[in-house]
């Protein structure tokens, strides 16, 4: 049994309680603003450059009773959106000074509308995320980004200048590089961390000032190096689909003889991917990064790239099985199900499809399916 990672424990301490943590309270006590964001296809760098704390709006490790939320957003909306709105109704996000939504899907646009109508904040913005990945899309996103910069500058009552942006790009690039290092370590035969821990780190990164997170990440990597930490499990798994914020779900999988070594989550590998160019004007560099650089996501129309990326991850991380978790009513992932299954069959990769509600932990039924799945993984490996 490995000892808990001190740096991770510190991250958890600083981001507790959820969501208005001691860090948030401290930040607000310094009379600084917090801007909520949903989906990582908008540049946190811009918010950071404006001297504000970007804070990812999401749920946490507990399921939420969404009854009140359903008065404003009907139940045939995905449970991620309803969870976020319920948390807002419960006052969990009352510390936000603003909210920016990237138009990744139909449902996040509606969350934005509802939030604006019922809990309007000082700064409310919505940024179009292209579904294509080409130069025309970069041009469009760049123009929209300029408009976003104008509006955020007005909110701050001071222009967000290129110099500030360049500095923020460096800070965030450093964070991505550190997270990417951790992903590299997970390629080892015996990875130093569990999938549950890795996801916890990734999600906490969106709740801390990035400089502070970077510092803790450096400590964490150092700690791993020093302690020679190893997770001794026989089988390696990859998790796919909608972002999971309840890490107990992953821990339940890892309660079997398996460790999650890779993911293709927005809040996971995509969030750690690549670098914003530092040899381009910062706005252009941001536009090029956010449209072209992270691996294709579920919202991109052409899912060939997403499926190819999943294949590559499975190879790079030498996974024995894939667990796909799709939220009910997620249109995008829904349309990829058929091809994903075919692809996994073609490569003789065991696939466990667990479609659950956001935030729910793995119940007995899921555990039974996971055990059966692990038997399949074992037999294929044999």
């Amino acid at each position, binding site marked *: 049994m490995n000892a808990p990672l001190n740096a991770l424990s510190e991250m958890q301490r600083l981001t507790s309680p959820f969501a208005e943590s001691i860090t948030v309270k401290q930040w607000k006590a310094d009379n600084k603003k917090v801007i909520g964001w949903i989906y990582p296809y908008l540049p946190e760098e811009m918010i950071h450059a404006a001297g504000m704390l970007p804070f990812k709006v999401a749920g946490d490790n507990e399921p939420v009773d969404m009854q009140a939320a359903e008065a404003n957003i*009907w139940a045939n909306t995905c449970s991620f959106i309803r969870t976020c709105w319920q948390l807002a109704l419960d006052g969990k996000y009352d510390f936000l000074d603003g909210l920016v939504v990237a138009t990744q*899907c139909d449902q996040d646009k*509606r*969350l934005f*509308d509802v939030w604006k*109508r019922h809990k309007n904040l000082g700064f409310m913005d919505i940024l179009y995320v292209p579904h294509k990945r080409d130069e025309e899309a970069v041009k469009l996103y760049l123009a929209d980004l300029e408009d976003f910069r104008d509006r955020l500058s007005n909110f701050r009552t001071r222009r967000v200048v290129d110099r500030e942006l360049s500095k923020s790009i460096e800070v965030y690039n450093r964070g991505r590089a550190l997270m990417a290092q951790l992903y590299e370590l997970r390629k080892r035969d015996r990875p130093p961390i569990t999938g549950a821990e890795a996801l916890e780190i990734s999600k906490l990164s969106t709740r801390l000032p990035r400089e502070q997170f970077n510092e803790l990440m450096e400590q964490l990597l150092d700690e791993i190096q020093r302690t020679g930490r190893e997770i001794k499990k026989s089988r390696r798994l990859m998790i796919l689909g909608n972002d999971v914020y309840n890490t107990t779900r992953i821990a339940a999988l890892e309660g079997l003889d398996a460790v999650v070594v890779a993911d293709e989550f927005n809040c996971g590998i995509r969030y750690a991917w690549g670098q914003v160019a530092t040899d381009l004007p910062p706005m252009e560099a941001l536009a090029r990064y956010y449209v072209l650089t992270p691996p294709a996501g579920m*919202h991109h129309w052409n899912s060939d790239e997403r499926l190819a990326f999943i294949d590559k991850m499975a190879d790079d991380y030498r996974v024995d099985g894939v667990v796909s978790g*799709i939220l009910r009513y997620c249109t995008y992932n*829904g349309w990829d199900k*058929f091809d994903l299954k075919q692809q996994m069959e073609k490569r003789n990769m065991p696939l466990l499809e667990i479609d659950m509600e956001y935030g729910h932990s793995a119940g007995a039924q899921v555990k039974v399916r996971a055990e059966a799945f692990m038997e399949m993984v074992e037999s294929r490996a044999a």
Partner: protein
Amino acid sequence: MVTADEVAQFLGMAKTHFENAPGMMKSAVGYMEMVQKYVDRIRTAKDEGKFVATHGTQQPLEIYEAMDVVGVFNEAWGVLSTKVNQNTISEAMSVSSSTGTPEGVCSFFRNMDGLLHAGKWPKTDFFIHSSAACDNVKAFHTLGRRYNIPNFGMERPYLPHTRQAMEHWKNEHRRLIAFLEEKTGKKMDYDRLKETVRLSYRLTELTLEIDKLVQHVPCPMSWEAFGGTLLAVRLLPGTQYAVDYLTKLKAELQERVNNGIGAVKDERFRVMWTSFTPFWDMGIMGFMQERYGAVSVCEMLQRWRGDGQWLLDEDDPLGNLAYRTQLAPGNCQYSSCDDWAGECIDQAVKFQADGAIFNNNFGCKQGAGAGPMVREMLMKARGVPTLSLSCDVIDPNFVSRPEVVSQLDGFFEMIESNPMYQERMAARREAKLGVPA
């Protein structure tokens, strides 16, 4: 699962029914003929050597028309199919489910998925879609890959009125033409495009003129012809055929207004559909007329935004078409809730609505997020109550007629006891508008 031939056969029977049924609007026959024309174009396209594009909503069909490409609107095909055979949608969707497509996505697309899998979808050379729609358009790429059908997606920004958004969207029209030119080997004839745009604009003018007639109390439009404007604008813009149909429809409505003929003898309720009409069972509208004296006066899907004047420059057909999308009927549902609700409030005023029905299509995420807000804003602004009806847009097995009826019973009773409604009715009686005492 139905085929194009079965759809055509059904439309022939429906036309005969409307010809012989007493008390129906003449335009109901023309309506069936127009839809027959649409289906026949699809059925015969390949024999005539034409290319066929299956497409999503909010498409510049005037471009297809100018290039002799025959369009199959996937949503309309679902609506037509469910009329032919009540079980076809369930069957197609069960095939879709067997491929792994989840039940939570839109039935228009699940139906297409199932029919394609079963080889019953009209023969298609390419898929075309745009982001001026919903997330389900991703299916065009997914299914395109599966069935080796090339696809083209047009990207329209969420906030479409900025300078860069308008330019980008116009450019996407250029890219669509380039795609079609490449796939068909045929060059765009821009004079012909100007002509299809002109005809399309005439269609818009006619729908706006028809709106004015429908606003009369009592409402002259009866349920059997209600969908005529919707399908003319959504299926056949840029054609003389659609212009001719709406010209006749307008003349009939004018005649009915002149003679004080309403859809029902005693108009008691004027109903607006704030999402869409009951495509899964259009007979509900006729039933509402008969049982409650409730006339459908407008539908979000078929009304132009604002004044609908999208013709900006006759010499710039692409600029016109790009702007047309923003004003197009139903476009507001892909925009913010404020926009959607604002359009409904505008319609409630113009059409003097007494009540609204919001069909909450199980697979529609836009509607699931917007429905409560549209309902609330409509009530606040105009005192118009909304019945929110859980349904599937084309699957008649999702909600039964008796279930709908029981909700309608309560809804109309509730409206009747509303003092604002009573005031409106008193004013109509005062003005001798042919409403019951």
